[in-house]
């Protein structure tokens, strides 16, 4: 399978929407990360998409994987990057509506309890406009998550390499090849295909050549502000 065939394969996955759609109608987008791994034989491309799933009513880190050690490329799993605390829940137990107060809230990140009392200015620094008074139900889940991404950085919220690879147990002996949160992601919902995308095409080429320097970021569009939520 040459790079053209691999890109065609990725195109097919994209055509089936079994490829990250950063403005997925059911997952409000906060951040994404692209990782590539290479071994003596195997290669692997993994996308993580951090967001809030409106249908599951929960925070998710969606994992999409493609590679020689992945029998069925595409969506693999969704991890839970942050969770609500039982003592200070973010969601109403009956209605599942968000009851977070923008002025004070707590979450569990990787098992660690974290409390925040941000100001409007701090939200603004994260690109989030808070134009209402404090109180229960004044902060949406995606605002909370985007603030966390800004405050903690993606590293804290995405999976460790070990955790990531644990979802793909067949992939062994791989070394990290490329990892970035800034690249030009194809606009799948607008029918842009990975083969026509400079970042994806160059990554496949880089993997084939075993030369990470061939990877091109293009015009990075993985900031959440680039994607208009369609729900």
């Amino acid at each position, binding site marked *: 399978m040459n790079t053209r065939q691999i890109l065609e394969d990725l195109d097919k996955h994209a055509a089936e929407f079994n490829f990250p759609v950063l403005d*997925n109608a059911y997952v409000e987008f906060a951040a994404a990360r692209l990782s590539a791994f290479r071994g003596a034989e195997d290669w692997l491309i993994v996308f993580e998409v951090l967001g809030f799933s409106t249908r599951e*009513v929960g925070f998710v880190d969606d994992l999409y994987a493609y590679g020689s*050690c992945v*029998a069925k490329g595409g969506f693999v799993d969704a991890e839970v990057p942050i969770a609500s605390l039982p003592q200070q829940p973010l969601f109403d137990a009956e*209605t599942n509506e968000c009851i977070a107060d923008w002025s004070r809230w707590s979450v569990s990140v990787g098992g660690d309890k974290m409390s925040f009392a941000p100001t409007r200015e701090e939200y603004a620094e994260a690109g989030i406009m808070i134009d209402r008074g404090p109180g229960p139900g004044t902060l949406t889940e995606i605002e909370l998550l985007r603030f966390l991404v800004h405050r903690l950085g993606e590293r804290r919220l995405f999976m460790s390499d070990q955790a990531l690879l644990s979802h793909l147990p*067949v992939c*062994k002996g791989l070394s990290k090849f490329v990892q970035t949160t800034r690249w030009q992601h194809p606009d799948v919902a607008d029918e842009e295909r990975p083969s026509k995308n400079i970042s994806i095409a160059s990554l496949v080429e880089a993997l*084939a050549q075993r030369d990470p320097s061939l990877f091109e970021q293009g015009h990075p569009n993985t900031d959440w502000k680039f994607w208009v939520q*369609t729900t």
Partner: protein
Amino acid sequence: MLRAAKEEMPALPVVWGESVLPLAADPVLLENRIRAKSQLAENSRQGFQLRSSTLRWASSEVKSRTALGIRGTLYDEGIGSRCTGKERDSESGLDEFGARYYGSGLGRFMTPDWATTPIDVPYANFGNPQSLNLYSYVKNNPTTVGDPDGHCPDGCPTPEQLAAGNQFSQNVFVGAAKGLWNMVAGTWNTGAELLNAQTAASSPTGTPFGVPTLPMAQPANVTQAVSGAVAQTAVVVGTAVAESGAGSRAAGESTAVPQEIPAGPSARPTAAQQSAINEMGEAHGCSTCGATTPGTKSGNWVGDHQPPTALNKDGGPQVYKPQCLQCSRQQGGQVAAAVRAAKKQDQPQQ
């Protein structure tokens, strides 16, 4: 296991310049899957275009398929099967059963059942509410039951046999059956009825005496699940993901649990609604692909809003169906694309 399979594979022509990128684990399987899924995805996209009232027709070629919808397309282009065993009219695409014509794309007869003997509900088995739908085909159980003449699945009583019985008793049975039907359908399928009402112009799902239909009654297998999904042609998005029978529910299972529940009043399911969604998922599997596990960390089935909120511009009634996580993600992409396409259509021409 995949590793073992891979090691047994012959060397592949994997060349990019001087470099090599090996193929994914099982190339034959992968290619077959890609081909099959690609076709399904294509059908799904075309079907979506047909079904979304917010989108205009993509082409006259697509438009010409409206009579059959996705299932008809699959049958005509892919399987080529006349699984009913009846002759198909090449012009209309309908199967000729003698008494009536059957539309495989809709999974319904085109006209209500009838009988030479005057009777309230021809060929009905009052112990089986499925038989009260005068448009349904073999009580929505095509894998195990045949229909020889367009009137009646194998073994059902003839109108003559019923007419010979006690008319009073029969009326009592009819009333009871109607009551049961209304209770079940009214309680669980209110949304579906309303949605069917939206599509009544194109889908003859009503009955002469006002008994609500069971629009998506108990898909018996994946094929029927796809068929059933297509029956809701105007409201279901992104259904043609079904890949195989593996993992799907067996015929006749879990008939007591509804296929869908009304959604609302808010955009997300309440705890009680989530509980009901989980119950439906456990009973019937994913409404899109038939998967028997939800794939979520929480163990909850995803509540599939139909029609999707983003496409429900009129704010019409919605229902919840259980869906697995994989299908939900793919459908979310489809909806995003549909919304984007609709926005493009709505933009004034420059």
